């Protein structure tokens, strides 16, 4: 087992035993389902909207080269500097270079999942800069030196009490059990950071090829402030975030809001098309867009699973996933959690190291059913299993399945097997749930089904 796989198993074992944690996540996500269903019902046709969204993203991803060229050309025409990074190291280097060139020190960040992917904060801190996350949830997990628990709701695993304790410890504020007061504490601390920061770093939800804009979706206004006050704005964007046309947003903005958080529209949906333009009151002097590959082209090359690049990171698949609901976001040990994470992480970080995520699924398909851009998520998990096994079969599984195939193809042997099972199960209680029980993975928590006194085929025989 790879280190990532054994860590995952360890985490899953501990977290599924934590009933308080399980209840917390389920309660939080139950609220999500209610509001999402309400907003879905307001669409005249949600299923057709999904199909249209899937088709638009299909076009974007399957003509990614031309769209990216157009996107960059349009951005550059309005004074934006576009950078291309093949991998995480290059992206970090580009961003640090921009900051150093400016002789800047303090950085305010709005939520950047690609930043988590390339471990940007660590790199910036190591380079001697001060970095502050401005999204409330991200700010909280940054204070805890933790990764986001959910890529839409980063601090979903914490109670107000835990957050109050954290703020008391880190910021010296008085304890409170009011979410509003806690939010206002963060507001006060961060206001000053927006004004004094030299650099604002953001992500991008969409890149509009036709007009050369990035689009950022947020509720708090922290990205608006991050991109308004500092002199330099750097946006880090995965190359797959492209949408061909500006009006595509008319579909994607409400769908992202609905699928992501059960909103009609997210609080602020903002398109940035350049640095401050002549005649404008404010805005950064310089705007940099860093385009990140980091193995996305690897996923693109897998035509079967290419639609995973349609993902708009709404988090909907996490919210309905029974695995996520029982183990939570930190168990995965990956930047992108839940079903979409289980699909893309093996492509981004290595199939053999991360294949366990594709096996850690009951293949229930709730993710595929909910995905607003119709990514065939649970079937991709099956394909990843097939690919991983074709590359490297498990030494004992291969002969086992070969033997089973032989058994299944010889009904006489199968009947004999059932008869032996009937004898075996008389003695099985002697070893049940012990170290030598061959089916202990089952019997540790469950009783074993019994071979019936009369199997179906035996019953059928008696009728003749």
């Amino acid at each position: 087992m790879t280190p990532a796989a054994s860590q995952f198993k360890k985490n899953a074992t501990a977290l599924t035993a934590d009933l308080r944690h399980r209840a917390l996540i389920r309660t939080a996500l139950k609220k999500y389902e209610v509001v999402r269903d309400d907003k879905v019902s307001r669409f005249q046709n949600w299923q057709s909207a999904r199909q249209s969204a899937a088709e638009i993203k299909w076009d974007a991803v399957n003509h990614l080269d031309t769209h990216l060229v157009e996107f960059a050309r349009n951005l550059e025409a309005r004074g934006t500097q576009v950078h291309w990074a093949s991998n995480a190291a290059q992206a970090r280097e580009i961003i640090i270079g921009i900051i150093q060139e400016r002789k800047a020190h303090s950085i305010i960040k709005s939520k950047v999942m690609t930043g988590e992917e390339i471990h940007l904060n660590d790199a910036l801190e190591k380079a001697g800069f001060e970095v502050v996350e401005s999204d409330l949830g991200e700010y909280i997990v940054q204070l805890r030196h933790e990764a986001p628990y959910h890529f839409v709701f980063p601090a979903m695993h914490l109670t107000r009490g835990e957050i109050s304790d954290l703020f008391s410890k880190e910021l010296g504020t008085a304890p409170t059990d009011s979410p509003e007061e806690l939010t206002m504490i963060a507001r006060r601390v961060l206001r000053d950071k927006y004004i004094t920061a030299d650099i604002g770093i953001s992500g991008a939800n969409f890149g509009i090829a036709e007009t050369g804009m990035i689009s950022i979706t947020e509720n708090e206004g922290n990205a608006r402030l991050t991109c308004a006050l500092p002199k330099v704005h750097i946006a880090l964007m995965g190359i797959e975030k492209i949408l061909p046309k500006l009006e595509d947003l008319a579909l994607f903005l409400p769908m992202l809001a609905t699928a992501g958080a059960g909103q009609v529209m997210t609080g602020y949906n903002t398109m940035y098309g350049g640095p401050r333009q002549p005649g404008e009151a404010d805005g950064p002097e310089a705007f940099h867009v860093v385009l990140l590959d980091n193995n996305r082209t690897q996923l693109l090359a897998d035509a079967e699973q290419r639609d995973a690049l349609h993902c708009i990171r709404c988090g909907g698949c996490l919210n309905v996933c029974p695995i996520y609901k029982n183990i939570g976001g930190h168990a995965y040990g990956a930047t992108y959690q839940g079903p979409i994470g289980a699909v893309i992480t093996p492509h981004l970080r290595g199939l053999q190291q991360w294949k366990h995520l594709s096996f850690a699924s009951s293949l229930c398909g709730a993710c595929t059913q909910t995905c607003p851009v119709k990514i065939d998520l649970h079937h991709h998990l099956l394909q990843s299993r097939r690919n991983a096994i074709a590359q490297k079969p498990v030494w004992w599984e291969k002969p086992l399945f070969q033997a089973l195939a032989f058994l299944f193809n010889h009904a006489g042997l199968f009947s004999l097997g059932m008869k032996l099972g009937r004898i075996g199960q008389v003695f099985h209680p002697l070893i049940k749930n012990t170290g030598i029980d061959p089916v202990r993975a089952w019997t540790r928590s469950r009783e074993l089904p019994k071979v019936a006194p009369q199997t179906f085929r035996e019953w059928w025989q008696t009728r003749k």
Partner: protein
Amino acid sequence: MVANPKMNERENILGRIREALSLPAPIPGAHHGEPSHPVSECDAAAHIPEWLPRVGVTFEEQIALFRTNATELKADFLLLDSQEELVAKLREIAAAEGWKKVATHSHELTDDACAALGLPMVRTDNGYEARDMESCDVGISACDALIAQTGSVLVTSQSAGGRALSVLPPHHVVLARREQLIADLPSAFALLKTKYASGYPSLISFITGPSRTGDIERILVLGAHGPKKLTILCV
């Protein structure tokens, strides 16, 4: 000659993309056996208005929908009959909230209304100090449109006094004309394309309710970083 490394990465990435795309991908919905057509022949965008939430055709229906959405978003929306009424309403809010300093920008709707308040003003038109704006009680701006379908206010860095005015002060007051009410999101993008044909502003923003967060126990709190209050006065 030394190759420009930046240029190389661009070509490397585009090269990898082109190579990857040499294999065609199954089209959306194919695995469900749904009737499908080649995506190149589809015009998904043309149908968007038919899928989105329904909007009535008359002004009355649209204003009622905007009002319902605004209420749900915890924004204040008032439809007023005249410029005088608008000025009076603004003065009433200023008195009730005890405004001492106002941030705004020059616009036919904001000029008279703000002057009538008789309060110190920060105008963004010729630049401003961020701390100065931060100390204002309210940001008063015009907008490009009100969108009935979603209860959103459409602003740009050109129409609404720059980037910070609508998010830095704790209260954002939007002044709009009833002709600015439009039906849905597709109309909003059509409007942007026509209005800014000669060049888009560097920022376009759909503001939907006051700033909000649910990051603590998924409980709604207003005023996370941007304004705690959003008031839309439509005349």
